[in-house]
């Protein structure tokens, strides 16, 4: 199994380290031809406008959409925005996943926060019930989901912060900034 990490901008190295520690081969993706031979893709945290613009400039939008027809893709924070259908802001999107998102939904850096979440899908997959340490940095929220998209996690006030639609996964927070590999393992279970 070989997993690509979209390496246009952001914390792609952190995802690579997580996967390396799980014994998974990885490759950085900056150009369309680099998608060849990959079984799945992670879109990291970063600045979603920067990632979107670079993806458009280097003709990655269509190849990524095509890749998504057959392969698993997971977006964390900026990556979740890039995967979404709608962000109410003019910027390039992959529009692969039936989620509506709102950028910087909690505010600026002063409003960044950490919280422990109970995520039943993770607990089931890992076979134990440890709370999940979720780190939100100028984070987006998932305003609504449609189609066959399932909600994986919400914060106590009910706002959605993780969702899954088939082999697509979106999280508002950053599993790559923790030492807990359960989310990465869960993503790998979606890869064919």
């Amino acid at each position, binding site marked *: 199994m070989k997993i690509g990490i979209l*390496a*246009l*901008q*952001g*914390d*792609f*190295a*952190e995802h690579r380290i997580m996967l390396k520690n799980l014994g998974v081969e990885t490759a950085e993706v*900056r150009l369309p031809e680099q998608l060849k031979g990959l079984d799945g893709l992670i879109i990291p*945290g*970063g*600045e979603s*406008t*920067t990632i979107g*613009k*670079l993806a458009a*400039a*280097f003709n990655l939008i269509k190849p990524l959409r095509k890749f998504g027809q057959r392969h698993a893709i997971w977006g964390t*924070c*900026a990556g979740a925005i890039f995967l979404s259908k709608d962000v109410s*802001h003019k910027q390039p999107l992959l529009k692969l996943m039936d989620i509506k998102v709102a*950028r*910087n939904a909690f*505010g*600026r*850096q*002063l*409003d*960044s*926060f*950490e*919280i*422990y979440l109970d995520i039943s899908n993770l607990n089931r997959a890992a076979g134990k019930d440890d709370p999940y340490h979720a*780190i939100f*940095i*100028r984070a987006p929220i998932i305003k609504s989901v449609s189609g066959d998209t399932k909600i994986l996690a919400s*914060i*106590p*006030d009910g706002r959605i912060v993780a969702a899954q639609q088939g082999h697509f996964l979106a999280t508002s927070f*950053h599993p790559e*900034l923790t030492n807990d590999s359960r989310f990465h393992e869960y993503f790998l279970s979606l890869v064919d």
Partner: protein
Amino acid sequence: MEQNTGSLKRKKGLAQMLKGGVIMDVVTTEHAKIAEDAGACAVMALERVPADIRAQGGVARMSDPGLIEEIMSTVSIPVMAKVRIGHFVEAQILEALGVDYIDESEVLTPADESHHINKHDFKIPFVCGCRNLGEALRRIGEGAAMIRTKGEAGTGDVVEAVRHARTVLGDIRKLATTADEELMAYAKSIGAPYELVKETKNLGHLPVVNFAAGGLATPADAALMMQLGVDGVFVGSGIFKSDDPAKRGEAIVKAVTHYKDAKILAEVSRNIGEPMVGRNISQMPEEEKIASRGW
């Protein structure tokens, strides 16, 4: 909801989201919009770019909060702003404004000639400049969550940024072969906290994100710094003192992403207009250099 705002994890975390990106100096809302459209991952809001601070002289201070707030409301990307070295009240003001990052910067006139701000006191993360590993680790010891090389701001001459990046990264490489029992003496010799020296040795890199800054003017300069091993770049005067800031800004953003791909670097460097005029540092009198500010 558990909301322990301000942990080091989140302070460092925002810098991790900026990696592989370009942070651009902007002095107006129009600049800020151009920077965002060019693909900047953040902007530095200030009244004068370093080249103008050099040209006009006088005391350089924190920018007018009104200007910073206007820029914050213009763009959706993170906004940073500068305070004078040691001026913790300017930092309190920026925290009250809610900027995303504070640069305790040698580009402004220092307010304290012995002490930097105790950055642990703040919820807002700080970035600080450095010329070598000792200086970087002193700043991290004071609570900086991100480091940048100082370079020589406002010159368009990349030589000092190269010197500082090579020094910091070279010091870290040497640390890898330094025996554990030698670390205390080494920490003493570079004036750095022992625990951070040990942590840096174990990690093989600084415990925080490390950008380049000071004198970058072209896509090739940015890619050079990336190939030397930094995580991203600040471009100050280099963009808005050039002929065509929108084009040059976008070219530098692309160059940072594709920093190892010479074909793309050639492509993005083509027809982007004249760079800033620049000043050759080897002919600059010592007293005009600002990188030596910081203790």
